[in-house]
């Protein structure tokens, strides 16, 4: 059979396809928002295979545990018991205080007790990772969009692994969710506090308040006063009112380096490295702030 007509048609399609591709590569970003929907559809057949790959990768190469956490089981249990007792004390104290304040408020406003409680506590939602670019530490990570999840998560919600923040939800699509890691440049400036990793009576509980900025790679940078006493290994905790309230106090990373600035002798630069990366795990926990309740 003669295939001349078919080949000729293909030959005419090719310049058109190249022309469209070149055009798309040059147009403003605001004209390309629709590509996220196309990506949602295109990723549908890839996502199940990719999900298996992520689980396999995490099984074969599990994330390295942060070195400052205790590894000995006995010591860990002791620490857990001490922490439990401390938090129980704090909880009891807070409960007494809140009851006292609630009573005062009820007397003043004649409101029922239920109205005094927080109506929207964060919803803890574990979500599987289904895709990422392994070579890019700060690259966008793709999360599985399970049924009933989309209404409970909002753009801007925090994703954590243990006590560590790994990123924020940047987009909730039709078939997937996108997570921007904390080291991604699009995250912008983050207000944080540096606290000692192992509190002692000699060191202040709050060492410095900083403004963190990602370098687009694996670390974040901030300037501190030279007299603040920050050491390598100290923890950097979120203290930013523009982030969801539930994330305040979660760890953004640990101080990996303290550099004296030649041009500003009274200031130092700290290099902050996240302790946990979304790249190294197969599942993250999103602290959802959406209003929709589970069925």
């Amino acid at each position, binding site marked *: 059979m003669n295939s001349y007509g078919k080949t000729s048609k293909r030959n005419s399609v090719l310049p058109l396809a190249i022309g469209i591709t070149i055009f798309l590569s040059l147009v*403003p970003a*605001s004209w*390309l928002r629709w590509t*996220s929907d196309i990506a949602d559809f295109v990723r549908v057949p890839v996502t199940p295979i990719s999900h298996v*790959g*992520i689980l396999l990768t995490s099984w074969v190469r599990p994330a390295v545990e942060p070195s400052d956490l205790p590894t000995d089981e006995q010591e860990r249990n002791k620490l857990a018991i001490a922490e439990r007792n401390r938090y129980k004390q704090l909880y009891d104290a807070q409960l007494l205080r809140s009851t006292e304040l609630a009573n005062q408020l009820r007397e003043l406003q004649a409101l029922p007790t239920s109205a005094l409680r927080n109506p929207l506590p964060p919803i803890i939602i574990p979500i599987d990772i289904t895709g990422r670019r392994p070579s890019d530490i700060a690259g966008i990570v793709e999360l599985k969009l399970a049924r009933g999840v989309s209404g409970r998560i909002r753009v801007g919600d925090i994703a954590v692994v243990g006590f560590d923040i790994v990123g924020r939800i940047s987009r909730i*699509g039709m078939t997937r969710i996108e997570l921007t890691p904390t080291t991604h440049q699009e995250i912008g400036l983050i207000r944080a506090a540096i606290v000692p990793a192992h509190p002692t009576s000699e060191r202040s509980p709050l060492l410095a308040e900083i403004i963190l900025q990602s370098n687009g790679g694996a670390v974040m940078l901030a300037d501190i006063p030279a007299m603040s006493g920050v050491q390598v290994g100290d923890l950097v905790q979120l203290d930013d009112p523009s982030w969801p309230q539930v994330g305040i106090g979660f760890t953004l990373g640990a101080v990996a380096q303290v550099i004296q600035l030649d041009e500003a002798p009274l200031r130092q630069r700290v290099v902050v490295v996240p302790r946990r990366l979304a790249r190294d795990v197969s599942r993250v926990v999103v602290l959802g702030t959406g209003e929709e309740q589970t069925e």
Partner: protein
Amino acid sequence: MKPLIAIIATLLALAFDSSFGGVLTLRSVGSITPLAMPCLVVFIALFAPATITLLVALLLGALVDLSPGHGELIGGGHLIGPYALGYFITALLVLKIRNVVFRRRVFTIAILAVAAVITIGATEALVLLVRGLMPWTPPTEGGGINELIKHFGTAIYTGVLAVPLGWCFLATIGIWKFHSPTGRRATWR
């Protein structure tokens, strides 16, 4: 070329590059990770008819552009072009030289995969540079010698991956149903 086989191979290559590849990531040397898609494009370009090769390369590149971590734009969009044109130019280069290479050798696929990654990287850089010259786009940042070294590392590592992948491709060449232009498979050296 059988479309179903090409679709399955594409899905596996996309899944490898966005997940399975993490197993092979060299975390201590800048997270260098091998890529499966350049190997697939090189294989198709070695055996498929020219026009189909170019169209498929453009399509596969566009799919890579739509993958997580590639061509991200503010607002969640993806930039279609850097990889699409990169794979297209790679396919064009392979088509130019495929008559003078030993196509049925794993070593050929490995060497061409290394060249493919370098070509794709160069095209991506060119597209981003040209895009940065547009008045509505902020100038392109990043790159530098570290990125260049990492890219060459990725190219070499992809070449290493191309050895087992190329062997798999060549072992299954019968089910791809490629047809040589002259109708004689003997011309595939």
